[in-house]
């Protein structure tokens, strides 16, 4: 008998006669709509990320400001990123992922700019789904600085609403603040292997 058959047979023997289980789903499947954007901004800030809340028309200026403050000159720009977001930063050199950027090139870049698939207010989480303007996973992992533009309508109040919006067939990365560790005396320290600086522009 193969190990597969053996394991399945053992499982069947182990649970034979056990009663079926009903799953109570009495928890909240929606969160508070009021104050959604403010809560998201506050919770992302709790993770020591930099957050700007601006009218949609000011995204380009905010992005340009952020890049110049950071001194980011060579920026990874994933395919499908809205052109207007970078329209106020013409001098920034764009690294496009075609042909795919090597790890060394990504490591040498000053940062990466992306949009996102969905964001969660209650937990201050941004989810990237490798869709347009998000790029493959390494693009937001290797560079030390991640600038992310989140649109008002992408922010959902709670985790269940985010899970419902996402496509599991795509690789997803849920990001809650910059890279961090709690391994030294269980205190949170920001900045290990992922981007050490996360800056978020929320466009209203």
């Amino acid at each position: 008998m193969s190990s597969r058959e053996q394991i399945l047979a053992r499982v069947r023997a182990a649970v034979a006669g056990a009663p079926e289980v009903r799953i109570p789903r009495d928890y909240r499947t929606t969160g508070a709509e009021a104050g959604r954007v403010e809560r998201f901004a506050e919770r992302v800030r709790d993770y020591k990320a930099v957050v700007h809340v601006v009218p949609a028309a000011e995204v380009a200026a905010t992005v340009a400001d952020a890049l110049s403050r950071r001194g980011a000159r060579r920026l990874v720009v994933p395919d499908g990123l809205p052109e207007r977001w970078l329209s106020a930063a013409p001098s920034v050199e764009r690294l496009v992922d075609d042909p795919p950027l090597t790890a060394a090139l990504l490591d040498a870049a000053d940062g990466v700019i992306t949009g996102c698939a969905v964001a969660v207010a209650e937990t201050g989480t941004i989810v990237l789904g490798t869709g347009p303007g998000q790029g493959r996973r390494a693009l937001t992992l290797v560079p030390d600085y991640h600038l992310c533009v989140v649109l008002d309508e992408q922010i959902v109040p709670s985790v269940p609403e985010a899970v419902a919006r996402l496509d599991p067939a795509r690789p997803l990365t849920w990001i809650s603040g910059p890279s961090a560790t709690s391994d030294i005396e269980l205190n949170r320290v920001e900045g290990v292997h992922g981007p050490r600086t996360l800056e978020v522009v929320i466009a209203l």
Partner: protein
Amino acid sequence: MSAGPGTFLGMPAFPKNAEEALEDSQLRFNLRKATHTIRARRQAVVDELPDWAALRAAGKAIKDETLRNLDRYLIQAEEAVTRAGGHVHWAADAAEANRIVIDLVRATGETQVVKVKSMATQEIGLNEALESEGITANETDLAELIVQLGDDWPSHILVPAIHRNRSEIREIFLEHMGEWGRPAPADLTDDPKALAEAARLHLRERFLSAKVGVSGANFLIAETGTLVVLESEGNGRMCLTMPRTLISVVGIEKVLPTWRDLEVFLQLLPRSSTGERMNPYTSTWTGAVEGQEFHLVLLDNGRTKVLADEIGRQALRCIRCSACLNVCPVYERVGGHAYGSVYPGPIGAILTPQLRGTASELDASLPYASSLCGACYDVCPVAIDIPEVLVHLRAKTPHAPAERLGLKVAAWTLDRPSRLRRAQRLASRLRGLLPRRRLPGPGAAWTDTRDVPAVPEESFRDWWNRTEGGAR
């Protein structure tokens, strides 16, 4: 290098280990500080959710339903992963799982792998197995790195180096980083930021050139074949994303039926483990993605045996959050090493003897490594009644003849009111003969840590009958 389960074999029983650990005041100080920090944080973020109890009930039921129909869900997961271009392997025990991983690494021609922290691969001793075949496994989680560099044992599920404080970590980095790659800077301080930076620099090159990654998983979604890994540092993302070949070793109990179920567990797990609203990074992937080759190794290694025990099987609900360790008064004082297993603390005390059996003195002593206070049950996000399983396992472990006799006598006496009354009267009459502090013979072990209870002049019932409740 780092210690696997093999190292734990032959360890003395828990009471002996505990006695030694209790004498290490530095260890007690480190543990107290860390567990109290995390307890407060967990409580704050749990209290924030008005529906925590409902989430916990759902989490428990989802896991129970999964275990009830595990055969069906495993087959479903296998089909979904295969459909998405992944390869699925089944391993009945540790040796088979290690053999599968070794062969997969061999096939790539590589001799180095990068690893994400994973309890399953620790349980099977994968690092040692790889090493014996000339393959170096590089742990990349900060705490695992501390353990690996210090040639030490993990002592906590979530934070394996919880027993080390910052200055000890600094020493380990200064002394051993150079043996494995980029050394720590000579002027390294014990500031946690500086220590994290040293780890970042040490591992960076290895990540960027890694060809083979080995991981576990927190969840495997049967419906979609999606694997889910929660982490903090980004080392997980590095190991899951950068290598061309990814091998994930996953216990069969990690399955969740549907994608939707994540809405429960992505709330329960981060708040219970690191006490955060959400951990910094969660990666999900389905099959082979972004040009990778993906292998899933489904691991039994004793889990089906646990599943067959009606009371003990609830331990398989565990999502490895480690909240039970952080609140346990026993764990807080003796630390994780005393449990002699990669699964320490209350959950280890019920999981290890079930997975490994109770043949060794150590494993047989684990169900007693608890005061049965129940704090572990209160905080468990999937409501594992750990005290219930402890008592159940205590009944199953071997007992000394004196203890068996004593309990038989007690059972006989308590069976009839008349017998109890006679025994009580006899005890009252003989109370002058009882030693004050220590019992002789086999009873001495019991009075090692307790005083002999004072026997009253008469029983409550006799007093009541004589005085009509004090009226006379």
